[in-house]
C-alpha cells in the first residue's frame, strides 16, 4: 500500500483534508507533512486581522496523519474497498509555537497501542525549522466501513 493509496482512502476532502504526503509509514508509526494554504477559510476568523492556525486544526492535522493514515495502513488487508469508519475518542495536546499561513508542518506519530480497533499514538508536530510546535496523545477507533 503506497502513501498515495492511503491518502485516497482518507474520508476527508477540501477544505478539511490536512495531509499532503506521507514520508514514512510502518506498523510502528508514520511521518507525514502538510502545508497550510495562505487562503484557508479559518484564517478569516482566527484571529480578526491576525491569521494564526487554530490549535484544533493543528490537532486535526496530527490526527489525520498520525492516527487515520496509520490506522488505514494497519487495516490494509481488511480495507479492500470503501472508506474506513473512524472516530476520534480522545486528545490531549500541548502547544508551544504558532503556525502562520503558508507554513509547512511535519507530523511524527509513534504507535503506543493498537488493539480491539483502538489506536493510541504519541504525536508531535514540527515546523520547517524543525522546532516542536505541539505534541500530545491522540486516540481513535477505526474499522472497515
Amino acid at each position, binding site marked *: 500500500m503506497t502513501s498515495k493509496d492511503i491518502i485516497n482512502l482518507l474520508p476527508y476532502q477540501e477544505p478539511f483534508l490536512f495531509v499532503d504526503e506521507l514520508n514514512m509509514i510502518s506498523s510502528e508509526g508514520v511521518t507525514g507533512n502538510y502545508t497550510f494554504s495562505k487562503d484557508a477559510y479559518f484564517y478569516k476568523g482566527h484571529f480578526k486581522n491576525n491569521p494564526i492556525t487554530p490549535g484544533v486544526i493543528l490537532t486535526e492535522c496530527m490526527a489525520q496523519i498520525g492516527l487515520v493514515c496509520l490506522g488505514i495502513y494497519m487495516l490494509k488487508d481488511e480495507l479492500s474497498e470503501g472508506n474506513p469508519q473512524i*472516530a476520534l*475518542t*480522545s486528545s490531549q495536546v500541548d502547544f508551544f509555537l504558532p503556525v502562520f499561513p503558508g507554513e509547512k508542518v511535519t507530523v511524527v506519530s509513534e504507535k503506543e*497501542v493498537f*488493539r*480491539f*480497533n*483502538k489506536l493510541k499514538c504519541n504525536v508531535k508536530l514540527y515546523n520547517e525549522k524543525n522546532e516542536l510546535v505541539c505534541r500530545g496523545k491522540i*486516540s*481513535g*477507533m477505526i474499522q472497515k466501513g
Partner: protein
Amino acid sequence: MTNDELIAKLKTIVQPYIQDEEAFKNLNEDTDFINDLKINSANLVDVILDVEDEFDIRIENDDMEKMISVKAAMEIVNEKLAAK
C-alpha cells in the same frame, strides 16, 4: 484474592471511564459496563488494557467481547489468573 478485593480493583480501573456516577457508586457484581456505567466502546478497550496491566494477564478478542459486566470481568480475570 477475595471477590470483594477483586471488585474493589475493578472499581478503581473503571472509574476514569464511567459516565454514570450513580451507577458507579452502587457498583456490584451485576453492574453492566455499557448499560449501567455508560462506558463507551473506546473506553471499554481502555478498561481491558488496564485490567491486563493490573493483573498481568492477556485478554484475547473472544474474552473482550464477553467482558461487558463486573461479573464477566471477574470470571475472566479469575480464569486467567488460575491458568498462570
